[in-house]
């Protein structure tokens, strides 16, 4: 069904522009707005001056369990939950605001962003469909991303109990985010 309201369309174009500005993939735009693929492609080219990257989206929940991505995903979800609980907004708007705050926080810490916007979006979808959830660490009580049916009675987070090689990976040579 095409939506005919110009106001709704204007709002959706604003959301789509925000998403493109945050490097979201086309599939994210298609899922979060009612705009047609052609319009989204045109918008993308207009804003970025090039065609969007093609190919499949990352789909694994396991990526979020490895040490470094898990810390970043947990930070992002903590921010997301905070905003989500604090006020009533559309999911996509919470996502955009939370992702901006995540980037800001990472920048303040002098770290590289590990979670791309598309990954963050995926993460929220995994939470929505119940594949992932957060569990409080039994030491520090901070919420961390875990698989839904994992046993968490004695869960200790990756930051209270750091693996010996943690955080010692070399930065990616291209410095690019793995979308």
């Amino acid at each position, binding site marked *: 069904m095409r939506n005919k309201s110009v106001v709704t369309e204007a709002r959706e174009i604003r959301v789509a522009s925000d998403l493109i500005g945050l490097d979201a993939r086309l599939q994210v735009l298609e899922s979060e707005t009612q705009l047609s693929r052609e319009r989204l492609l045109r918008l993308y080219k207009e804003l970025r001056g090039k065609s969007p990257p093609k190919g499949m989206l990352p789909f694994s929940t396991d990526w979020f369990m490895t040490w470094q991505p898990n810390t970043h995903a947990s930070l992002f979800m903590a921010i997301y939950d*905070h905003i989500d609980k604090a006020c009533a907004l559309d999911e996509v708007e919470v996502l955009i605001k939370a992702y*901006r705050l995540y980037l800001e926080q990472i920048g303040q*810490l002098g770290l590289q962003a590990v979670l791309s916007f598309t990954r963050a979006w995926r993460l929220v979808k995994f939470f929505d469909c119940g594949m992932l959830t957060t569990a409080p660490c039994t030491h520090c009580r*901070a919420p961390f991303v875990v698989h839904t049916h994992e046993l968490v009675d004695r869960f200790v987070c990756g930051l209270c109990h750091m693996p010996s090689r943690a955080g010692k990976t070399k930065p990616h040579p291209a410095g690019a985010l793995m979308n």
Partner: protein
Amino acid sequence: MNTERMLEEIREANLTYLMLAQRLIREDRAQALYRLGLSEEVADVIGALSAGQILKIAASNLLMCAMRFNDDLVWNLLTGHSRQEKGNAGAAGMHAAILMAGRVAQPA
């Protein structure tokens, strides 16, 4: 520090805090709730204050803002007294950030 000077400094801190909070709330309410750690109700009140009201509230002998975290762990991580700090500076900051972000404002 004599009393008059102390009251003056409290007034100034209150004024700065309330004005900043109000600006943040008016600019982007959702982000402000996160940054300030306030509940929606308090944010609405502060967002709606007039300049005169802010001046009046600021002139108090109490600070209007309180410490957000009463947790040893957060403070240890922030001050770098934790075991983690050695060799992995980023991780302590990250840990503190997750702990702080995970703390939702107490309803007023």
